[in-house]
């Protein structure tokens, strides 16, 4: 028989304008930093924004944004807390920073549970921070968040883009909406990602330079908003709204 949770997920997401899955297939390309700062940037522009950390075995958004001492409230489901204007949901509320070893099947089960019980505000944007890999979370996102648009990140490295390309080709084959590609952690301007975007018919959404001062701002919202990284991501946000 059908999993009853699947019947309400659509209803739980129905007050959300645009769902953006920040992805790339690859790890360490700045998905968590970009998701977190993009949420902030959109919120500062006056939009209602939600952020869902879907990297269940290594959630990072709470580290980036310095979120602690808050928790969801329980009311006909659970209502994620709003921090710095962004409604934020993460498995970390239930794992307390402990290692969270989960095989794919359990990840998939946990995602369905989270979607079944989470009650989002009326949102203009829900940003999903995706884990790396082309597996359970990707399939679940495509199947459960109907209409989610993918924002792919890549660095300027061939090693990285080879993986990003595989995700891009797969999403294109499946007719999943692709918002575009953002080039992150730029150390130099070699035009590689821009060229690849042309070649593979994907919109180029902007670039984010490597910001060596970002590490000092991690966990502190005021410092974050003063970084060049935040300004660059704000530029990406402009291309999205």
């Amino acid at each position, binding site marked *: *028989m*059908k999993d*009853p*949770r699947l*019947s*309400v997920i659509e*209803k739980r997401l129905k007050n959300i304008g645009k769902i953006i899955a920040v992805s790339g297939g690859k790890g360490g390309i700045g998905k968590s930093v970009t998701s977190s700062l993009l949420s902030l940037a959109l919120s500062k522009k006056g939009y209602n924004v939600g952020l869902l950390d879907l990297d269940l075995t290594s959630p990072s958004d709470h580290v980036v944004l310095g979120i602690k001492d808050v928790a969801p409230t*329980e*009311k*006909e*489901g*659970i209502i994620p807390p709003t921090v710095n204007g962004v409604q934020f949901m993460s*498995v970390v509320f*239930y*794992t*307390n920073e*402990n*290692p*969270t*070893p*989960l*095989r794919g099947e*359990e*990840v998939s*089960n*946990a995602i369905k*549970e*989270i979607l*079944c*019980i989470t*009650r989002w505000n009326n949102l203009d944007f829900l940003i999903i921070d995706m884990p790396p890999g082309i597996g359970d979370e990707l399939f679940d996102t495509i199947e459960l968040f109907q209409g989610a648009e993918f924002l792919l990140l890549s660095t300027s490295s061939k090693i990285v883009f080879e993986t990003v390309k595989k995700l891009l080709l797969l999403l294109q084959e499946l007719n999943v909406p692709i918002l575009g590609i953002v080039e992150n952690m730029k150390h130099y301007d070699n035009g590689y990602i821009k060229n690849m975007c042309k070649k593979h018919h994907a919109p180029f959404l902007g670039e984010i330079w490597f910001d060596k001062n970002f590490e000092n701002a991690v966990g502190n919202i005021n410092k974050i908003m003063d970084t060049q990284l935040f300004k660059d991501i704000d530029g990406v946000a402009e291309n999205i709204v």
Partner: protein
Amino acid sequence: MHEWALADAVIQTAVEVAQRESLKKITSIKMSLGELQEIEREFFDTALNELMKTHGDLFSKTKINIKTIKTRFKCRACGHQWKLSDTEKTLDEETRESIHFIPEVAHVFIRCPKCKSPDFDIVEGRGIGIDSIVGEK
């Protein structure tokens, strides 16, 4: 109180079945609740009743049968099988509350009693399952 969201899922599933099979009334819902999720029956039953009222006559004579399923784990590392009650005493209130919301969090806090691995399957008794939904046209 997040039981409401879970009850909502059950009722929504029944509504979908009714639509798909053109049923006028849902006469019976048979379901099971996994012990692991520790669903509060009082909240859950109240939620089911409230939610059924929001669908006109569809649920006016629905019999709901709920059975509880004990939780069984099986270790993928050593094959050992055990019951929730074998490990339960080691779980504090806050942990049980976390598992109540997301049962997979069990992998954070529970270990195979034999080999200490977190790599186990929740064989049965995880959360909500629907066994059958029956109605009349």
